[in-house]
């Protein structure tokens, strides 16, 4: 799989305005190119770039390995960061985060199965991309809207108290590593 993300038009403008591009290698050895404005959305990556002293001259010759994120998630993350690299900061309003509506483009990007979403959230947390974290969490929050406890158990895989007790008992009954 060659996971070179499609270069959106905004990235072409970015190249013209600001030619600094970075290379990132995912855990399964896929290589991604990301612009400076986009990579700044990830606190982890930007700290790494700063600490490594990467500059416009040497950035493309020094790909950054990210061992905790696979190519599939990295592709989504790069697309997201390129899309949102020029966004203004969100308002500092306590309830803003609960009231904002996920834009359609992002909803489509995050229309993935639950296992993928789970992994994407872990990757987002590792790369410290607050905006993507907010958007992923909004998807999770929307799943819970107007649901009863029974429905939530199914959506979030929540065992009943009886099932939790049974699991706990079987865990304590099972022999340890020494047999």
């Amino acid at each position, binding site marked *: 799989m060659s996971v070179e993300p499609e270069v959106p038009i905004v990235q072409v403008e970015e190249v013209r305005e600001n030619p600094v591009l970075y290379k990132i290698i995912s855990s399964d050895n896929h290589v991604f190119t990301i612009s400076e404005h986009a990579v700044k959305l990830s606190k982890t990556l930007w700290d790494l770039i700063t600490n490594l002293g990467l500059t416009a001259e040497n950035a493309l010759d020094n790909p950054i390995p990210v061992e905790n994120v696979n190519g599939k998630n990295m592709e989504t993350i790069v697309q997201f960061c390129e899309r949102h690299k020029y966004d203004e900061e969100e308002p500092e309003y*306590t*309830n803003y*985060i*609960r009231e904002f509506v996920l834009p359609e483009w992002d909803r489509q990007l995050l229309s993935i*199965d*639950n*296992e993928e*979403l*789970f992994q994407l*959230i*872990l990757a987002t*947390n590792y790369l410290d991309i607050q905006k993507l*974290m*907010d958007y992923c*969490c*909004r998807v*999770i*929050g929307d*799943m*819970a*809207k*107007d*649901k*009863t*406890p*029974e429905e*939530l*158990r*199914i*959506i*979030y*895989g*929540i*065992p*009943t*108290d009886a099932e*939790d007790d049974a699991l706990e008992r079987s865990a304590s009954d099972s022999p340890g590593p020494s047999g």
Partner: protein
Amino acid sequence: MPLLLSQFPLLIHIEIFKHLEFESIFMLSLCSENTKRLIQRIRLKAKKLRYTIDDDQISVLGGFTDDERDLESITTLKCVTSISRKKEISVKLGGEPIKCSFGRNSHTLKYLEPENEDALELLKNHIDSLFHSKPSIQLKLHSPDSLSSSDIFDDVTDTSFMFENLDASGIEEHLTNYPNHHSLEFFSDLTKRELKQHSQIWEIEGLALLGSYLTSSRAMKYFSGRCLILHNAEISYSPLIQMIRKWQKKDGLHNLHAVVIHTFASDDFVDALLDELNALDWDGIRRPKMFNYDPRIMNNSQCESDFSDAYDIQQEDGGKWGSILAAKDQIAFVVWD
């Protein structure tokens, strides 16, 4: 395949819970004891909780801020006489198992009263356990029974009495039980209640009388708090003058923010009032144009009001400025900080 919520690390749980509505958090807390413990680890901090208590229904709203507009529903419990066996489930509310059902697309938890007489207390205990902070408690009481059942709360800061047959002793007892009240709102006409000069209601910071009628004069005479709102007021000239004079001479009302009187006031009445008080036209300098109205009374939102057409008076000895804004259906007196 489900999204395994419990398997995220705590920091991600915190992020997720920022995006969950109060209703969803409450529903999650009913899923299992483990999920409830997960919520407790998040250490949610609400600023206020509002319980609306009726004879057969309890609703709870919660807010992360003091702003009235930020309140959102947490849950509604409805007492019913029967529950379909097909829909019946058991959840733990306040540590006790109760049989209940949920309506389709509804967060209303329906429970059977004979088996759950202490539903309010169970709900209170359950909600208390979800929040790490100690939110201020507001009550909206719809019946005398709801008033008597409200004594389970540790502290109450605001109460709205939404029923007619309310006696003065009940109010005084409620205020004695909960001396830290910030605001009171009365739906009923208090004219025939024996509210004495030294009644605790006059000392409340925020007081709103929705049917103030003939009580208006006494309210203006005795009120010593911060914000007084009188709806359907039957206003007479002298109590209003005396109230403003008291503030002007610094004989009382030291903490006054606003008095808003919803009433019909004729032009003659307003002219006489302004003459008597020697009110001045606004000069555009001595105080701002916009007044930040912040009543801090349940059901009354804060807002910015244009006071460019208001008239000004000053306290004695170069004290604070106050402004009177008169319209056909409302007279407002506000104090500038």
